[in-house]
C-alpha cells in the first residue's frame, strides 16, 4: 500500500493516521478536512469553551507535538465531494482528485437543524469550533436563550448559560430530559438539578416553528404558546455525513454500513468514528456510537484493518462510554440502554447526585451510570465487557461483596 487517504480531519481521522504510522505504514498519507482548523477536540466546546474557561486554542490536538512527526499531507478547508471507488479516487471541492490504495472514511456527523429556521439569525447549532465561538459571542449579550432538545448537548449549553448568568428555557418533546438514554428517574434528578440552577423547562411539547422578522423572536410550541427568545440553540441530535458517498457503491443507511471489522462494502475502504454503523459483537446489535472514546478506538482499529489487507482484520468489539459535565455534576455512562430497561440504584441517592445505577434487560447487565463517582464505574465496565448477567452485577454491587 503506497497511498492512504483519510477523509475527515477530526478525532477518528487523526487517531487513525497516528495508528497507521505507529504500525509502521511509511507510504504517503493524506488527511483531508472540510474545516479550516487543525483537528481539535469537541467535548470542551459545550463545556469550557462556551463558558470562556478555555482559550479556543486549547482544544487543538497535537498542540505540543505538531504534525511533522506524522509526515502527513494535511489538506484543510477541503471537502470531499465524491468517491470513485472503481478508479480508487476521491474528488475534492477544488476539482482535484486524490488517488488512493486505501481510504478511511471519518467524516463524522453534523448537527440536525429545524426546518424553516435557515433564514433567521440568532439560531445556532453546536458541532464545530466556529459554532461555539459564534454562540459564545451571542451569549455575552445576555440574551434570552431557548434550547431546543434536552439531550446532553442541550443540557450542557443550558449549564453554560447559567454559568454566564443568562436566562434559559429548555424545550423538549419528551416528558423528561435525557429520558430516552437514561430513564425517567435519572431524567427527573437531572431536571431538578437544572431547575435549582435557574433553568426553566417546557417538557412534553414540541416546537411548531421559530418565528421572527430576520432575527428569531420567539419559539412557537405545538400547544400554541410562544416562548420569547433572542437566541435559540438547536440540540436535536446529529446526522452522519454520508452524502458525499452517494453513488459510490459504499453502502450507507444512517451511517456507513460496515462489517464487524469496520470494512465498508467497497474493497480498500474502511471507516471510523461517528459515521460508522456496524454490528458490535459485545451487544449483538447494529449500532452507531456518537462518543469520543469510540472515535479513538475505531480510528485505531480502522488503521489495523486497512493494513491487514483484503481478507484480514478482527471484529471490532467495544463498550460505548461517554461522560457529560453539567454544573458540578459529572455523569459517566458505559453500555447500551433503552428507556424501558430495568434500573436499580446500587449506591448513593439520586437526590444528592452521588450514585451508581445499573441497567438490565433480558437478564443481562446492559449499562452503568455513575454520577460523581468515577471510581465505581470501572468495576461495572469490567462486568459489562464480560457480558455479565444482571443478577451477577447486582450481587457484585452488594457492600459485602465489594471492596
Amino acid at each position, binding site marked *: 500500500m503506497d497511498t492512504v487517504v483519510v477523509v475527515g480531519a477530526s478525532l477518528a481521522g487523526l*487517531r487513525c493516521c497516528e495508528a497507521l504510522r505507529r504500525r509502521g505504514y511509511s507510504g504517503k498519507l493524506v488527511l483531508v478536512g472540510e474545516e479550516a482548523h487543525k483537528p481539535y477536540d469537541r*467535548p470542551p466546546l459545550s463545556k469550557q469553551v462556551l463558558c470562556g474557561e478555555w482559550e479556543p486554542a486549547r482544544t487543538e*490536538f497535537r498542540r505540543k507535538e505538531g504534525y511533522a512527526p506524522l509526515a502527513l499531507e494535511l489538506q484543510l478547508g477541503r471537502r470531499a465531494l465524491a468517491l470513485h471507488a472503481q478508479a480508487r479516487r476521491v474528488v475534492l471541492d477544488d476539482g482535484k482528485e486524490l488517488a488512493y490504495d486505501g481510504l478511511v472514511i471519518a467524516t463524522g456527523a453534523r448537527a440536525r437543524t429545524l426546518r424553516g429556521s435557515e433564514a433567521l439569525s440568532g439560531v445556532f447549532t453546536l458541532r464545530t469550533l466556529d459554532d461555539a465561538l459564534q454562540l459564545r459571542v451571542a451569549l455575552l449579550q445576555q440574551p434570552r436563550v431557548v434550547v431546543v432538545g434536552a439531550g446532553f448537548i442541550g443540557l450542557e449549553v443550558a449549564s453554560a448559560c447559567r454559568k454566564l448568568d443568562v436566562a434559559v428555557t429548555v424545550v423538549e418533546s419528551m416528558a423528561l430530559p435525557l429520558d430516552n438514554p437514561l430513564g425517567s428517574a435519572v431524567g427527573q434528578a437531572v431536571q431538578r438539578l437544572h431547575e435549582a440552577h435557574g433553568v426553566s423547562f417546557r417538557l412534553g411539547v414540541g416546537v411548531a416553528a421559530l418565528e421572527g422578522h430576520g432575527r428569531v423572536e420567539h419559539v412557537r410550541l405545538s400547544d400554541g404558546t410562544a416562548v420569547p427568545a433572542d437566541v435559540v440553540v438547536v440540540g436535536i441530535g446529529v446526522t452522519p455525513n454520508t452524502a458525499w458517498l452517494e453513488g459510490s457503491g459504499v453502502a450507507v443507511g444512517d451511517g456507513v454500513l460496515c462489517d464487524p471489522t469496520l470494512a465498508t462494502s467497497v474493497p480498500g475502504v474502511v471507516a471510523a468514528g461517528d459515521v460508522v454503523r456496524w454490528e458490535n459483537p459485545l451487544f449483538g446489535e447494529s449500532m452507531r456510537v456518537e462518543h469520543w*472514546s469510540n472515535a479513538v478506538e475505531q480510528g485505531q482499529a480502522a488503521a489495523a484493518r486497512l493494513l491487514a489487507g483484503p481478507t484480514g482484520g478482527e471484529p471490532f468489539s467495544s463498550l460505548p462510554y461517554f*461522560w457529560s459535565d453539567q454544573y458540578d455534576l459529572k455523569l459517566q455512562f458505559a453500555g447500551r440502554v433503552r428507556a424501558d430497561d430495568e434500573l436499580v440504584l446500587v449506591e448513593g441517592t439520586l437526590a444528592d447526585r452521588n450514585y451508581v445505577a445499573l441497567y438490565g434487560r433480558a437478564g443481562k447487565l446492559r449499562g452503568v451510570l455513575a454520577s460523581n*463517582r468515577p*471510581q465505581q464505574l*470501572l468495576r461495572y465496565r*469490567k462486568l459489562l465487557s464480560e457480558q455479565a448477567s444482571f443478577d451477577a452485577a447486582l450481587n457484585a454491587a452488594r457492600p459485602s461483596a465489594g471492596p
Partner: protein
Amino acid sequence: MRIIVDFDLCQSHGLCTEAAPELFQIRDDGFLYVLNETPGKELAGKAQKAAIECPTGAITLKDD
C-alpha cells in the same frame, strides 16, 4: 520511560486504569494515582494505550 500526568487536566475518567491497571489507579477519593512513574519496557505498550485513550490528554510519556 517516565509517565507524567497533568492533574489539572485529569478528570478521573479512569480509562487509563483500564488500559494499564499496573500503572494507574483511581482510589475511593475519586482521584487518580500513578502507581509507577517509571515503568520498564514491558509496560510501554500499555502506557501508550492509556495515553491515547485518555479523553483529556492528561498523560504524557517521556523516553529516557
